[in-house]
């Protein structure tokens, strides 16, 4: 019998969990020594974007800090489903205080570490969009203003989910929530309101601001690790679809996050000291309908009492984001070095050069089937 070499078809892919990659190309999640900071057995819904995002983010933070991490959690889904007394999913030092004070508590933890000379211990604060953009906004701004050495991660599922899907200032226009019902002349959440937390964070001039989604988990890990290499106030705004609150299929969480990015509804970028330093380009632009239609919270915009006018306004928002952040090739923002830095940082996410027929089908596969 001849010697037959076995071809490893998986070796070259950048599937996020791929353990067959070279060690330095593996994601934190792919590594056997990952922290499992939030362990299995928690009570999140099937398909919860926040549970997925938290696992990646905190494990990446633990990897970068050699396990020297203290996490401060605001009240919300993540805290509730992870610590049903007498159990806890957390394998890191973790504290939950109140709904509105996670940034301030984190400031206190960081101050304690500093005064005790334990400079190797890092602090991460985390909360949902409700605690970050509304009730905890004052404390967040205070922490930014003092440039306290805290990385704050906001898990944005665009409403107060744990209390039954009420509107927050991160809820997008037209979305149905329990307090923005799809009735009246402007069904769902009204236009012209809302806060853009990443931009507000940038306005504070803090060392690092980034947005990310659970559709680009390597990108998320990269950004967390990048942030953890820095000191001072840092902010990551993570887009995490919520199947229950959005009325999407639990198997669609990653796909919905991708559509949010590919439509331009959620710009993915990095900024330092108030200036955008890099964006994740849209690979295959989709009209906002493709993003909105699978979500029951937008169902009232379609069907019998369709509102194409509102859909058009939403499209306008997406288009404005694309222009503003240069999310499409050919719509670059001012800095030409941007494209280069983007390529250098995300080699696996390069938009494919024109005319590469052989990879056309692979690209289709990525976009349509949602495989990263």
């Amino acid at each position, binding site marked *: 019998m001849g010697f037959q070499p076995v071809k490893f078809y998986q070796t070259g892919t950048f599937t996020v969990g791929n353990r067959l990659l070279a060690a330095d190309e593996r994601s934190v999640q792919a590594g056997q020594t990952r922290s499992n900071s939030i362990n299995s057995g928690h009570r999140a819904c099937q398909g919860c974007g926040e549970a997925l995002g938290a696992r990646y983010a905190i494990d990446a933070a633990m990897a970068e800090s050699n396990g020297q991490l*203290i996490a401060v959690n605001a009240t919300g889904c993540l805290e509730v489903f992870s610590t049903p007394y007498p159990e806890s999913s957390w394998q890191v030092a973790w504290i939950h205080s109140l709904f509105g004070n996670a940034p301030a*508590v984190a400031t206190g933890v960081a101050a304690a570490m500093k005064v005790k000379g334990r400079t190797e211990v890092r602090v991460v604060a985390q909360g949902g969009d409700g605690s970050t953009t509304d009730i905890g906004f004052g404390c967040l701004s205070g922490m930014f203003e003092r440039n306290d050495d805290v990385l704050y991660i906001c898990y944005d599922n665009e409403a107060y989910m744990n209390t039954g899907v009420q509107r927050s200032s991160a809820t997008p226009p037209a979305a149905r929530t329990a307090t923005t019902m799809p009735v009246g002349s402007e069904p769902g959440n009204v236009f012209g309101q809302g806060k853009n937390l990443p931009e507000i964070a940038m306005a504070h001039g803090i060392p690092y601001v980034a947005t990310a989604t659970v559709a680009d988990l390597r990108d998320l890990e990269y950004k967390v690790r990048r942030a953890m290499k820095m000191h001072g106030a840092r902010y990551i705004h993570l887009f995490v679809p919520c199947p229950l609150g959005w009325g999407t299929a639990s198997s669609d969480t990653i796909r919905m996050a991708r559509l949010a990015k590919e439509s331009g509804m959620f710009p993915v970028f990095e900024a330092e000291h108030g200036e955008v330093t890099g964006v994740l380009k849209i690979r295959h632009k989709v009209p906002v309908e493709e993003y909105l239609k699978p979500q029951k919270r937008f169902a009232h915009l379609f069907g019998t009492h369709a509102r194409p006018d509102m859909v058009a306004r939403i499209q306008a928002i997406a288009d404005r984001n694309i222009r503003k952040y240069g999310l499409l090739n050919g719509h670059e923002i001012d800095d030409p070095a941007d494209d280069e830095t983007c390529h250098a940082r995300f080699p696996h996410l390069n938009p494919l050069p024109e005319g590469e027929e052989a990879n056309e089908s692979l690209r289709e596969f990525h976009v349509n089937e949602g495989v990263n």
Partner: protein
Amino acid sequence: MLKQTEGSKAVAEAIALCRPEVICAYPISPQTHIVEGLGEMVKSGELAPCEFINVESEFAAMSVAIGASAAGARSYTATASQGLLFMAEAVYNASGLGLPIVMTVANRAIGAPINIWNDHSDSLSQRDSGWMQLFAETNQEAVDLHIQAFRLAEELSMPIMVCMDGFILTHAFERVDIPSQQQVDAYLPPFEPRQVLDPAQPVSIGAMVGPEAFMEVRYLAHAKQMQAIERIPQLAAEFKQAFGRDSGGLVRTYCTEDAETIIIAMGSVLGTIKDTVDEMRLAGHKIGVLGIISYRPFPLEQVRAALINSKRFLVLEKSLAVGMGGIVATDVRMAVTGTGLKGFTAIAGLGGRPITKASLHKLFGQLEKEELPPVTFLDLDWDAVNKQLERERQTRRSGPVAENMLHDKGIISAKFG
């Protein structure tokens, strides 16, 4: 070392001697001088190692203290009135989490109407939060109580408020003996937490506790305050041994041994009461004073023991249970249940109205003859009050109360010569 200094400055020096590691505070009258004093000491390096954080609100102040304390640092903050209410959620959170934070409350009235002067409504609004509450009679006692407070809080793993009358004590210059660093170090060992955030030994703090365990957790907080009833006098005795003076404890009696009438109060007003009582004693009246220092835990047994041989008592308090009467009076009544003692309440000094010896003489005279209603409002302008009530009876839209009363009081005009 003996000094003639402002109360706030003395307290700042006392705090510094306790080696706090994290200080965070938001400015509010009348606590500002305490925090300013500490801030300067940290900035100059006189107080080190210490992190001083300028926070954006009182809610942030208590939250920063929570984080710092949970991570094992000795933490301190100060506030008053509106600030205490603004941090109320965090106040309960701190005690629920068992964190030994020390906080000075420079007692001030709560609005509306806005009022920056002294009364006890702020501390008392948080009396059930699970914090211990000690009330200082003088600036010397304020200094001493802070030192005892850190020791007590850290032993029991429970936060504590040291209450001192805003302006009356904080802004008064008087003689204070500031202890030495050695003396304080001997009395107050380094902070050894019962639970701490540490990557080396990760724990989850702050889980959601359901009906199956919540009552037990709350009972244990209650039990801790029962332990404090024992520890407070012991720590005060130890303090006396080490520093040479009486400070703290649960209660302090003055001329009560043979007293037929006893006045009960908290804080700086005890000084004015004692001067009045001295004059009455000279005239042959059998009258005494019971000062309550530990308001939480409330020393039921000790209060009862002090009052049991008297005929009547009066609780003179700078607080009001709107719609009911006295707040401290209610606690005192609980202490004397079943004794048949005659108790009266006087609400006095709200919003900083001075409590004068002259008024107290009159009040105590009426008390001895038991010619007082159950609840008296000392030095109330009944004329203004009744006119306002009449106004409200006549017109539905009668306007804001405080502004309305000016109709009758008139405006003091300036005469320019």
